């Protein structure tokens, strides 16, 4: 566990650029999107767990929780969850490439940020289209 607040040398350390003083750029936005999508997935997984429990307990319980995946709201929730999932997943691939020192130059990292953003949307659409065709 990080203990940066209590070791007494905090005041002497240089500060990293804060969100408020940092010029917005795509790589920074994608870094924030990675965290936000991660938290969204965590919260979404709780909703899905409630849906699955309803499904497990019987038709009565399912009727109370089926809004999580059915109807307009349900479709929005699952669409958002799947997009966050694929976006976060590709964000992980981006980090794996950066770990190996690849695509770290200005052009490369911009390209990767764009590829993650576009790839997440494409993967989401592709999954929904294939899923609709398969059902």
């Amino acid at each position, binding site marked *: 566990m990080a203990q940066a607040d209590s070791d007494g040398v905090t005041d002497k350390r240089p500060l990293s650029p804060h969100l408020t003083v940092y010029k917005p750029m795509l790589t920074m936005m994608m870094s924030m999107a990675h965290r936000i999508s991660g938290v969204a997935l965590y919260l979404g997984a709780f909703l899905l767990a409630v*849906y699955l429990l309803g499904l497990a307990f019987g038709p009565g319980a399912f009727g109370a929780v089926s809004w999580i995946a*059915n109807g307009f709201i349900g479709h929005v929730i699952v669409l958002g969850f799947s997009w966050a999932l694929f976006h976060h997943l590709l964000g992980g691939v981006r980090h794996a490439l950066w*770990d190996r020192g690849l695509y770290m130059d200005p052009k490369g990292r911009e390209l990767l940020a764009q590829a993650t953003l576009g790839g997440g949307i494409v993967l989401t659409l592709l999954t929904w289209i294939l899923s609709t065709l398969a059902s």
Partner: protein
Amino acid sequence: MTSRTEFISGRTGRGAAYVSDVSGAEHDRFMRISSWALLPLGLLAGWFIVGLPGKSFEAARAEIGRPFPALALIVFIAIAAPHARKGVESIIEDYVHDAAQKEKALLANKWASIALTLLWTLAILLIAAPK
């Protein structure tokens, strides 16, 4: 420019990642290893979850109750929940500065991730159990 310097960590060994060599190494290693597992598992779980909207009680049960989707979703949450726990731990450590609050938040996060895994797994076991 690509970085050619090979990083050798005392804790994680000869590795690709430029990571902490102190207490952050375990966290970092877990996130990276679980990410590899979550690459195929996330795609699978995404596929099965996207198949749910619009399904009736019987249809959704039939889908999730098959052995492969059930197993994939259980293994997914068993790895995704601790991955989420560690991710949120980083966020708490970044933004919660009061020591007592931080401790409470970390504890709540720990038990939330455990509850998520157990409830999700229980639900799928009940759905997939032969009648």
